[in-house]
């Protein structure tokens, strides 16, 4: 095991999809620790609707890779109970959009027991869930909602944008003694049946390693504008930044990777240099992540900003179905580009 922030050179050439990186992380931790198990809907024979548990049933059998009834309150609560007794459950909530049927277990139990018990009880559990839209799955199957979970204290919230981080963050999440919400965007999984995003396949070391929770990465250094993003939008930001670099505009792209704890220092440091920021967030715009970043800067020193704070986020509308509607409101490369160019004053 190595704690590292960068791919180890040795195996850097092996390329995996994010889905495969996640299932590999789980498999390695399950081999290491017999208390780790996986539970959720269609995680066994199906391998997880978005492939996060593919192959695990064959390797670990049905006592450790467990299909559940459609009873999210029941089985997430059961995960909590098992964690309280010292097991280390990984529970899948198929889509984050279903949180409303089980939020009480997530928020009033998983997240609060440690605090209410004055630190005497721990809940070492990973809740993993698929987020995001862009494929016309409509208002109940396309949200990101990390802002919702981040608002309520007691949960760590991690959101990888690429295979390398996905593996390392999953390993960190499993080993963390706190409840961790692990949110993977369907578009970063590298699924064969979705639009291909090349950054969803990448180098992943074979050995076990952790990516630290709570630490952002400067995914691309630059001097002109700070672009803060995460998840699939981060990939879009890198694409746009590459393009703009060809036009002489150097965007610094920060991949938050964790929403809780939020790495405020890395953001402030970058904005301190560039004086300009664009936050790109597929979650709803208002009362969420993007606002918190504005507050972070304004609390520190509103004078840091030499241009208005700018967000490319989901406007405050539910997710529409038809493609022209959905692509109007998603943080598309075009919206990202326009925002960066405008903030840069070009």
């Amino acid at each position: 095991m190595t704690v590292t922030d960068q791919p180890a050179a040795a195996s850097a050439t092996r390329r995996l999809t994010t889905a495969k990186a996640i299932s590999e992380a789980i498999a390695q931790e399950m081999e290491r620790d017999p208390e780790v198990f996986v539970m959720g809907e269609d995680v066994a024979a199906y391998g997880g609707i978005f492939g996060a548990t593919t192959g695990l049933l064959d390797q670990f059998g049905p006592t450790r890779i467990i299909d559940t009834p459609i009873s999210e309150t029941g089985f997430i609560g059961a995960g909590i109970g098992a964690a309280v007794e010292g097991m280390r459950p990984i529970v899948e909530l198929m889509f984050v959009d279903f949180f409303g049927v089980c939020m009480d277990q997530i928020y009033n139990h998983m997240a609060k027991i440690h605090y209410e018990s004055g630190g005497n009880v721990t809940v070492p559990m990973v809740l993993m869930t698929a987020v995001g839209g862009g494929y016309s799955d409509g208002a109940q199957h396309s949200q990101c909602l990390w802002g919702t979970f981040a608002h309520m204290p007691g949960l760590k919230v991690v959101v990888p944008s690429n295979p390398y981080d996905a593996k390392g963050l999953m390993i960190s999440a499993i080993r963390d003694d706190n409840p961790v919400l692990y949110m993977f965007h369907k578009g970063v999984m590298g699924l064969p049946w979705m639009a291909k995003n090349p950054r969803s396949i990448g180098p992943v070391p074979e050995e076990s390693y952790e990516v630290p929770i709570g630490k952002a990465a400067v995914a691309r250094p630059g001097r002109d504008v700070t672009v803060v993003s995460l998840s699939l939008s981060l990939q879009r930001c890198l694409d746009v930044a590459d393009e703009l670099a060809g036009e002489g505009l150097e965007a610094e792209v920060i991949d938050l990777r964790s929403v809780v704890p939020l790495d405020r220092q890395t953001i402030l440091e970058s904005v301190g240099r560039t004086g300009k920021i664009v936050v790109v967030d597929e979650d709803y715009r208002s009362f969420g992540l993007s606002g918190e970043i504005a507050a972070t800067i304004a609390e520190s020193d509103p004078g840091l900003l030499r241009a208005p704070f700018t967000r490319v986020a989901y406007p405050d509308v539910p997710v529409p179905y038809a493609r022209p509607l959905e692509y109007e409101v998603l943080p598309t490369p075009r919206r990202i580009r326009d925002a960066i160019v405008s903030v840069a004053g070009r």
Partner: protein
Amino acid sequence: MDDELRRGFYRQMVRIRTYEEAIRGDYHADKTPAWDIGAGLIPGEMHLAAGQEPVAVGLCAHLTADDALTAPHRPHHLALAKGVDMRKMTAEIYGRETGLGRGKGGHMHLFDQHFSCSGIIAEGMPVAVGQAFAFHRRGTTNVAVAVAGEGAANQGAFHESLNLASLWKLPVVFVIEDNDWAISVPRDASTSVPSNATRAAAYGVAGERVEGNDIEAVYQAAGRAVTRARAGEGPTLLEVHTVRLWGHFEGDAQAYRGDELAVAESHDPIPAYEAKLRADGVLDDAAVQAIRAEAAAEVADAIAFAKSSPEPSPAAAYEHVFV
């Protein structure tokens, strides 16, 4: 049973199957060469109900336009049997401005007068309870029907809805479509009793299970349930053992089904019912041809309507958040 009624059952089932076959075709048509769920004429998840037509048709034969029905993620058969406008629902599925929801809802979110859907398992059930509450308070004899899969019967909303409807003696019919599967999870891996009809006793309501995916048995059982509801005798929990002929959603390889799939495929209720009606002299070649042709024409018309309808303008995304 009346010949005309039986022919009507057949006609409606053929109509629904013809519709779903056409949707299926268009769904896959332009997702080539690399299959992409978000691409093509019809993007997104697509849950079709081939095999489950007897439930929708046998049930909805008892409903009027003023009765309400809430459908789950797999709603087309129910919508068509309930009388939702085929053109408008098709336009919705194709994401057009002329759709039921102007393209905002999609196939899992079809909303019409007294017809609604939810993509969240079992969560359409409480809504039906509330519709029944309104009917009851207004002194009408309308009923509300909540349809859900057997997988949904393990969700808390099922329990709360049954208890509430029974407690308040509301005119609700709860219908469970037991197609043996919840995606890849078979009933016996999700449900602690062999039949959900057993669970009726937990709420003091009538419970009935119809075996064999038999439309006439469904019709009769649903009739008893609807009559009870209209008479103020409270809710019924009706489970129908049906069959899912296709994947959970389109693109589902169904490896998990193993040999069961072939068995299921041999249980298509439409040819079976057709054979029965032919044997009984209720249908002949000409009638079958006519029914098929009529269905094909209606479906073609609806799809043509959808395809020729404009897509919504991007700016419409900002409308209808609030009234």
